[in-house]
């Protein structure tokens, strides 16, 4: 457990930010899987940042890094990461597809990078929040743990009300439903302020580079470690 507590507190110096997390929440199913020492199944859902576009190699993509980060602080455990991008499509169709993927893979934890496409497509904020809420309820009803990752920070859209509205809607839903959230938008904004966008976007100024993915994986790994510790803390009185 020592390595887990360290993972929950430490970030590499390149990725240090003031805040990158939403509310505290327990990852009960993941904790149980670890306790039973069975293979831990993770499902990464999202758009191009999940697929790993912009990384120097497939191994540098965030789900692969996340998997190795988790293996780092959970030595001896078998962690199986399945990566399923849900390309572009928004709304009901995407939700049905996510449910089908979950039914097929039966993961312990879903890492869901959500919101960018909806924000760009100008999907109504309330409609989006409702979609998010109902899908999270469905995952909760099936006792599947979740970590949400909100949209990336793009300087150009930092003052776009709709874009930031979607980011805020994700925060609000995560708070209401007590779901772990990696506040990527805020973290990347912070990093951009510290060192300028260039370090996190590749040379053509556009795509996130390996460092950006590394930080994203670190934040997600740290959120997961905190979620396991929270489940541990909640479980103690019952023993």
């Amino acid at each position: 457990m020592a390595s887990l507590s360290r993972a929950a507190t430490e970030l590499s110096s390149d990725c240090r930010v003031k805040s990158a997390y939403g509310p505290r929440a327990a990852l009960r199913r993941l904790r149980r899987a670890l306790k039973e020492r069975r293979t831990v199944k993770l499902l990464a859902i999202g758009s191009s940042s999940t697929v790993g576009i912009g990384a120097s190699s497939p191994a540098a993509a965030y789900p692969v890094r996340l998997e190795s980060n988790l293996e780092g602080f959970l030595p001896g455990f078998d962690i199986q990461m399945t990566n399923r991008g849900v390309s572009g499509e928004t709304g009901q169709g995407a939700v049905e597809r996510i449910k089908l993927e979950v039914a097929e893979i039966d993961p312990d934890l879903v890492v869901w990078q959500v919101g960018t496409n909806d924000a760009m497509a100008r999907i109504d904020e309330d409609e989006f929040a409702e979609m998010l809420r109902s899908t999270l309820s469905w995952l909760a009803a099936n006792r599947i743990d979740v970590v949400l990752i909100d949209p990336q920070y793009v300087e150009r859209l930092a003052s776009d009300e709709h874009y930031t509205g979607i980011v805020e809607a994700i925060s609000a839903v995560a708070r209401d439903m007590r779901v772990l959230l990696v506040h990527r938008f805020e973290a990347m904004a912070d990093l951009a302020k510290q060192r300028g966008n260039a370090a996190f976007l590749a040379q053509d100024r556009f795509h996130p580079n390996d460092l950006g993915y590394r930080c994203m994986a670190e934040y997600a790994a740290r959120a997961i470690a905190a979620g396991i510790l929270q489940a541990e803390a909640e479980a103690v009185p019952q023993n």
Partner: protein
Amino acid sequence: MRSANAVDFWRGLALVMIFINHIPGIALGGLTLRNYAICDAAELFVFLAGWSLSYATGGPLHPEPFARTVFRLLSRALEIYRAQLVITMLALAFLASVALSTDNQLFLEWHNAASAFYDPVRTMIGIVLLTHQLGYFNILPLYVVLLLYAPLVVALARWRRWSALLMSLAIYAYALTTWATFPNWPAEERWYFNPLSWQLLLVLGFLSAELARSSEKFVQNVARLVPLAWAVSGVGAFVTLMHLWPDPMRVPEPRLLFLFDKTYLSPVRIISLLAIAIAFHAAFRYIERPLGPATTLMCALGRNSLPVFCIGSLLSLTGQIVRAMNEESFLLDCAIVICGVVLMGFTAWFVEWRSRVPGLSASRAS
């Protein structure tokens, strides 16, 4: 030029609905078939493609020589393949220019486009192999595969119709029970429209047309099914409006048989489409005159479905970009839809005009 007919009309309408459905979040999106039925315009489009296959190959009474059918279908497959490459390249260039001019990299990541820009070496191969499809640019690859498969269907149906149906059902059942599909590459995904499933709809459309043109009894039986078809369509509308979609965690194996999955075309979507086809097939006769110019427009779109679909795909993308760059507005959404339909109509008119003017037709020019 064909005169106005039901197949062209419904196909034209399907094209307009596909155009609207491909602009997610648009205000008028609530008007399309998928809001009132378990199936949507894509099923209608593929079923009607099968129906047209019967006409393109001479039909049951005057079948054209088989070698000619094969040549015709392969030529058409090549034409559609070319169209897919062209619209994919145009869409990528369009997204790139918008990303540059707005300084917003998110446009490069839209609809699976990102790997074309960030992993071009592998993605170029994927585009040519049809294993890299942009989001919403995935119907034509299905169509190419279906046309390559169509000669086999025609050959079997000419021998015994049931044999074509049996083969098609066997492939369909195999896909739904084993999750067999066409893979995407370089992304480790699967085709949005699984050809192994969707081929059944083409075959059903083809066989329906063959039977409708050769068997009086079939036509009478279909007419008897109309009340049932209305009832089934009504139930489908209720289920869709109430969002009563089955929960993938709660249905028995093989799950795909019981879900409403679009990629694998779950059976309920086929039933929904057939019910709508039977319920509405005779309606054209009654709405043809009252709709007046709208009938003329829809039939023109349906007659020129490939160029209209291609332009429609690019117009959907344009609509999405315009919406992304502006504040939400009902009026803007209406303007996008009206402009889109007008431009699709212009495309149909232009294609027919060009083929009428001596010396301007594409085939003569080459």
